[in-house]
């Protein structure tokens, strides 16, 4: 498995750090781990930190959009931060920034979400 998920809870915000490669093969496990964490803990908002994500394709877009719908349906907000250029291009092409803010790092993402919540 060449994708690692690291999670940290910060008040009602779940910070998820993905490292490695997010493709069709690794997507299912990421989806399960995130949904389980969102449900088990009292997660309101989600910050996806992609600093160490070396590769992502449209399967990854599907995972991000799916978690966005899940969080939104629960009344929360979602943001991405620390995105590498390759991943940024895909997010931009998919129109993701029309529905989700992007921040430079976890700190600005956390304060950004707290301002809007």
């Amino acid at each position, binding site marked *: 498995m*060449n994708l690692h998920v690291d999670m940290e809870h910060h008040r009602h915000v779940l910070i998820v750090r993905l490292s490695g*490669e997010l*493709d*069709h*093969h690794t*997507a299912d496990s990421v*989806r399960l781990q995130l949904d389980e964490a969102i449900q088990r803990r009292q997660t309101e908002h989600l910050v996806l930190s992609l600093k160490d994500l070396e*590769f992502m*394709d*449209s*399967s990854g*877009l*599907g*995972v991000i*959009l*799916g978690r966005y719908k899940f969080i939104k349906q629960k009344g929360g907000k979602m943001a991405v931060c620390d995105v590498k*250029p*390759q991943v940024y291009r*895909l997010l931009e*092409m*998919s129109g993701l920034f029309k529905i989700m803010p992007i921040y430079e790092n976890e700190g600005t993402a956390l304060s950004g979400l707290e301002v809007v919540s």
Partner: protein
Amino acid sequence: MSEGKSQHNFMTLQFAAKSENESFARVAVAAFISQLDPTMDELSDLKTVVSEAVTNCIIHGYDSNPEGIVKIEASIDGDIITLCIEDDGRGIEDLEMAKQPLYTSKPELERSGMGFTIMENFMDEFEVVSQPGSGTSIKMKKRIESKKALYN
């Protein structure tokens, strides 16, 4: 050994339609292309389109049946890389619909519907040939702005 731009080179790869082979396919094509000395951006574009096409073969062509075989042909002619990625699976019934951004025939699998859009955007030429019941073949070309050429 001459490294003239007229050189032709090719490789063919066949593998089981298993998701664990997606990263293998990306890395194999990237390694083959590296002889053209592509930039990091070009390399990541090519890895992304290989990933999209191979994932389509597995999920849509073969409905995730690992008995299917995915075939990749890559060739180099001068500074042009040509990729042909194909399956002998179910084929695409409505190609125009399939090419629409955000359209997916498998929303239950949380597919984003961006695969074809990404391939069209990242490559210079993109062509899909599909026959319902007998498979899909995707042919793509991209010119590599070789770093070698820049320094010469």
